[in-house]
């Protein structure tokens, strides 16, 4: 006899998210490279861009090594764009699983978020190893700020991805809008520059963007000499809180209709 445990709501969520997470690891990258490609690809990308840029400008940007400066920017923007895309896509991909009443689109998004964090943790380790061999100074002055910025960024990406994922179940063409919207983010989020490079009177064109705040604050968390001009944790946290709230509210009202299409 197979005994089924009576679980409360939270235990069901936990089990479902764990099962989806394991399934993601198993099937997320199914070619010969497997999971390692998900780590090697961004590490190589970050290495090449940061290394070249470091060579071009003599190695320092606003008191921090250019390699570190660039690596943080690219790591963060990549994490954001990939988590956003993943969250939106996973809702549709897992549609067959909603036949099990325990599985909800939100659990798929959360499992996808954990998966992204896991992969990016390995990417960070890869970059640290490269930095060690390049002889770049490894230091971090405020690890807690680093971690908070990263989690806030992932949360923001998941929230926006959730909205798009639900919208795409109703109207598929939203995926095209999503792709179009994420493209410029690479250039306006301070990946290649710092807010300090820009004259103050133009800041308002850029500093509405919470991703820029996250990236600049993270640079500051690594080297406190970098400063945190024009950005604040408060703004970032409020943005994330509001987006998360709105996306959850929208999700709560729409998800049943969305999967019943």
């Amino acid at each position, binding site marked *: *006899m*197979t*005994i*089924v*445990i*009576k*679980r409360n709501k939270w*235990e*069901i969520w936990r*089990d*479902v998210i*764990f*099962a989806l997470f*394991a*399934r993601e690891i*198993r*099937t997320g990258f*199914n070619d010969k490279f497997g999971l390692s490609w998900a780590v090697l690809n961004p590490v190589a990308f970050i290495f090449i861009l940061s290394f070249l840029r470091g060579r071009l400008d003599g190695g320092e940007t606003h008191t921090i090594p250019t390699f570190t400066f660039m690596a943080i920017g690219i790591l963060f923007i990549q994490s954001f764009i990939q988590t956003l895309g993943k969250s939106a896509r996973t809702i549709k991909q897992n549609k*067959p*699983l*909603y*036949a*099990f*009443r*325990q*599985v909800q689109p939100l659990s798929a998004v959360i499992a996808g978020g954990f998966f992204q964090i896991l992969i990016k943790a390995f990417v960070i380790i890869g970059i640290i190893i490269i930095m060690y061999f390049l002889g770049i100074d490894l230091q971090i002055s405020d690890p807690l700020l680093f971690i908070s910025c990263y989690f806030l960024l992932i949360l923001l990406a998941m929230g926006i991805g959730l909205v798009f994922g639900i919208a795409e179940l109703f109207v598929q063409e939203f995926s095209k809008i999503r792709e179009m919207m994420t493209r410029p983010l690479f250039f306006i989020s301070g990946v290649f520059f710092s807010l300090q490079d820009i004259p103050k009177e133009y800041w308002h064109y850029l500093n509405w963007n919470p991703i820029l705040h996250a990236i600049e604050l993270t640079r500051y968390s690594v080297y406190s000499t970098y400063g945190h001009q024009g950005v604040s944790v408060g703004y970032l946290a409020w943005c994330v809180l509001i987006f998360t709230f709105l996306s959850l509210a929208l999700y709560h009202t729409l998800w*049943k*209709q969305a*999967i*019943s299409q």
Partner: protein
Amino acid sequence: MININDVTKYYPSKLGKQYIFKNLSFEIPNGHNIGILGSNGAGKSTLFRLLSGSEYPNNGSIITDLSLSWPVALTTGIHPLMTGRENTRFIGKINGVADLDAYEERVKMFAELGNKYNLPVKSYSSGMKPRLAFACSIAIDFDVYLIDEVTSVGDAKFRRKAKEALLERSETANVIMVSHEMDEIRQFCDSAIVLHKGELTFYNDLEQGIEQYQAL
């Protein structure tokens, strides 16, 4: 008992909302093996998906304290890149099976996949996948099994086995099934629900229900 409270369900279409159920209230009684009868397009499958929780009504609610299976032998949840064993484990974990290892073995025994159980599902023949799906659901003890056309599962031998397992199970649990084969319904069910123009009628006696259905 399954309570259907004031359920409205429609599908949007170019011609406006296509209503399947409008303010439907109904009580599906306990302790019966029920066949759902209805002509094509009457909403049998929709009712079925609403009961199993794969879809939700636009309005109203369906409440029960019984554990209902997902549609038995539904293969859509099985991932082609994972092995039979991994798929089984996934389904077991989601449904809260206490002893996953024992469950794995039980499914393996029932599905008769042999060594292929440890190979990705995409390498299975077309009959093997439904067999795995069927085994996954029958190996969990639900109060009610929702069955959509059992006869489509596997070859004659496996079908017989599936029927026997279901018959055995229907002594302690109940089934709710949809089928166009009256023989099959007669074999499993003792009462019927006839679905006509968005209304449900329960017949305690199966034959009476079939008569009504055929007179429609």
